[in-house]
């Protein structure tokens, strides 16, 4: 059985429709990520699940209980906000115990629970400190401990890492994911950071303009994006105008390529999509399938790899190609050099042109 089911959730703010009939199932124990640009409705959807906003229409069922009209106090979730929302005048211990005090948990048990949670988030020494004495990352962990203290069935994380600097963010990603898996708590994470979504989620819900664009595992979203928007939003992308060339091939400028055309529209203009790292340059000969001549326009050194801007012969639009350090060391490409690239057929995807 699904842990949480949203059916036709619709939200309007005056004339503006924030969510278009969103239907979605959340599996028990998974970490589901709402991913999308700002204004796509992902935070609104989270706040509706929390009861902090009210859907205009639609229903929500959590653990077999219809929660569509329940006030936040009667729902079962813990929540962590981007701002942490830690109570500044209470100690870390008091913050974590905040939801326990109300439930008449005996003092000794409460203290044991606080100690357990702080150990869990790696802050066993901080129980008597005030939030202002902690770093941003530590504060976020306290907020997490506070949300988990009452053992909620659902954990909601609203852009929990976006206020932190890059290094802390990367470390906390792994910690939160590890914790979530150990506790097995069903979790919904809202983020606009695709890297965060790809590295943490069991499944990603990509949203755009108040509607779900695609739902799938991170690898699926990345490798087989369901639309040009998903392709473009998650990872770097090359999109080139194309058309059908007959016998299962596709025409891009003066070149024809093999690719999987299943699911592509039958006629009209198309676009082919591939990732920069899918472009091969090493060992490409004149007779390599799906290959074409090209010229290097720009070389950008990015540490672990280099990003080349290249132009296929006879095609106006430039495309990106990522080359490993080894490739670069061998080929020594510079702007103006000619080269031959190939686009593996299994990595090409075809969409209708907008």
């Amino acid at each position: 059985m699904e842990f949480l089911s949203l059916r036709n959730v619709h939200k309007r703010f005056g004339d503006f429709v924030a969510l278009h009939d969103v239907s979605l199932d959340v599996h028990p124990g998974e970490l589901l990520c709402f991913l999308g640009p700002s204004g796509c409705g992902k935070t609104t959807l989270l706040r509706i699940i929390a009861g902090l906003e009210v859907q205009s229409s639609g229903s929500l069922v959590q653990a077999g209980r219809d929660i569509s009209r329940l006030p936040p106090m009667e729902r079962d979730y813990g929540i962590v906000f981007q701002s942490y929302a830690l109570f500044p005048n209470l100690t870390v211990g008091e913050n974590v115990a905040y939801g326990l005090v109300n439930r008449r948990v005996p003092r000794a048990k409460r203290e044991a629970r606080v100690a357990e949670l702080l150990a869990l988030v790696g802050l066993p020494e901080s129980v008597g400190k005030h939030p202002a004495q902690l770093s941003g990352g530590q504060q976020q962990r306290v907020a997490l401990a506070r949300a988990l203290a009452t053992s909620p069935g659902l954990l909601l994380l609203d852009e929990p890492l976006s206020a932190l600097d890059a290094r802390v963010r990367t470390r906390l990603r792994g910690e939160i994911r590890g914790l979530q898996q150990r506790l097995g708590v069903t979790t919904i994470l809202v983020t606009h950071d695709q890297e965060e979504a790809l590295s943490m989620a069991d499944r990603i819900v990509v949203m755009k303009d108040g509607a779900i664009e695609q739902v799938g595992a991170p690898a699926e979203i990345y490798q087989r994006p369901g639309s040009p928007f998903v392709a473009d939003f998650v990872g770097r992308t090359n999109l080139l105008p194309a058309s059908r060339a007959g016998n299962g091939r596709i025409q891009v400028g003066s070149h024809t390529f093999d690719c999987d055309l299943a699911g592509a529209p039958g006629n009209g203009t198309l676009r082919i999509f591939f990732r920069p790292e899918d472009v091969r340059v090493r060992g490409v000969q004149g007779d390599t399938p799906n290959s074409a001549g090209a010229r290097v326009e720009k070389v950008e050194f990015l540490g672990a790899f280099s990003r080349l801007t290249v132009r296929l012969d006879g095609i106006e639009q430039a495309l990106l190609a990522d080359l490993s350090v080894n490739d670069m060391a061998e080929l020594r490409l510079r702007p103006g050099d000619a080269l031959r690239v190939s686009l593996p057929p299994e990595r090409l995807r075809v969409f209708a042109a907008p």
Partner: protein
Amino acid sequence: MSQAAGIALDPAAAGTAVTRLRVHWSDRVAHVFLAGACAALAIFLLAPLAAILVKSVQDRDGAYVGLENFVRYFGTPALARSIWNSAWTATLVTAITLPLAFTFAYALTRSCIRWKTLLRNIALVPILAPSLLAAISFIFWFGNQGLLKVLLGSGQIYGAPGIVASLVFATFPHALMILVSALSLTDARLYEAADALGTGAVRRFLTITVPGAKYGIISAAMVVFTYAISDFGIPKVIGGNFNVLATDIFKLVIGMQDFAKGAVVAIVLLVPVAVTYAVDGYVQKRQSALLSARSVPYVPRPSRAFDWSMAAFCWLVAALMAAVLAMAVYASFVKLWPYNFTLSLDHYRLGLVDGGVFPAYLHSLALAAWCATLGAAFIFVTAYVLEKTRGLDGLRPLLRLMAVLPMGVPGMVLGLGYIFFFVREDNPLHFLYGTLAILAVNTVVHYYSSTHLTAVTALKQIDNEFESVSASLKVAFWRTFARVTVPVCLPTMLDLSRYLFVNAMTTVSAVVFLYSPRTTLASVAIVNLDEAGDIGPAAAMASLIVATSAFVCFLYYLAQRALDRTQAWRLP
């Protein structure tokens, strides 16, 4: 772009009922508070104002007469002249106070003079005194038996000169506070850019400083004008035969029992105040985005000639203010002005205690204590419920409006509305009439707006998600209010409380209609003593009020410092 797509097709828009969450019982508690606050402000603010409107179109027997009262009022030359008197004195006061206060504020924020804190505190002292202290003091300086009477030659202080001089003293700190904050809000980078472009000092002043402080200047002008046109104590004490609107209301209502005409004057007085208030509200709204978070604060650089002239100006102003205050205090100790200048406590002992006036001081203390505790608590809780709870959304705009309305209502008008409304014996709340409670309620309502806005500002600085987090942890909002919001806002609450205490000690205008023999207040006692010719005891009472306000402010200051020291979590 994405919004355009969002608006496009909307399958659920047609005809479906909008979902509402069930209301949790703890939210009901908030709704009760919200509705209660609305009802309280409706009864103690809207109803009295409505009573004035009604009274103005009725004759003495309560029959509807249309605009006849207005016609008769404007047909009485003596009364109509008061409009002109009020208007030009208030304008003149604004024209004098504003440049003085601006220069003083400029010196405090843009020069390197020393003793800035001391100068500022001296300049703010008038706030601690009832406005009529200045009038009493000017009588001792320039009145018929005044020390410096000779300076006036054949002229005299009673009338417009005394009114204007006293009002300048009384309004100076109000303008100063606004202008100091306006001038502090300037981005130093603008000045650096001007310097880099070789801009001259005068041009820099006219193109950066004045435009930057423009809204503050307008706001200060409005505050001074409103204060001057609606003040009652000063024209009552030093006005002589020079009539203004505020004293007319008093004479018509208390002296001649002509309530209808009093109501007409109240409405006449309401108009300019409402207009200035509307202008100020408009200006405040436009000001908000003036300063970005990245602005760099301006740090003045020493400049010998400029600093010396600024210091000279400030010390001159401070000396004049000290002279006004000191004269009232000095005169309160002088045995028999102007014949026997030996110092004694006679005015305190014989004039106040034996004269039976001293209880008025105790009433004022009690009133101030009620306003500073229950009043401040009511204002804060109402602001909290308004800003931080959910549901009952229909009432919230109404409550917001009522909370800022008192700013546009002069005290005399509010007080008059209270008598009209509560004096009627068929009003179930008539029992409040003549009690200390109604004075306290009236004072809290009179000073509601600025305290409410202070509370709202403080609450808005608190993370809005505290209530959301509490709800997710199943903790009712009042626990979070008590455990988090109140401790975090304690400094602001102390501010509110102090503000209400000082104003309750010093206010005259609204309460002058409402006191009974059992609840005479200190500030009102000054008016009565002065009217009876007991100007020495009047000065004593005024001094007592200043001393009390100052002492209480000092206590609040100690409390604030104790908070900062004991609550380490406040410091980053």
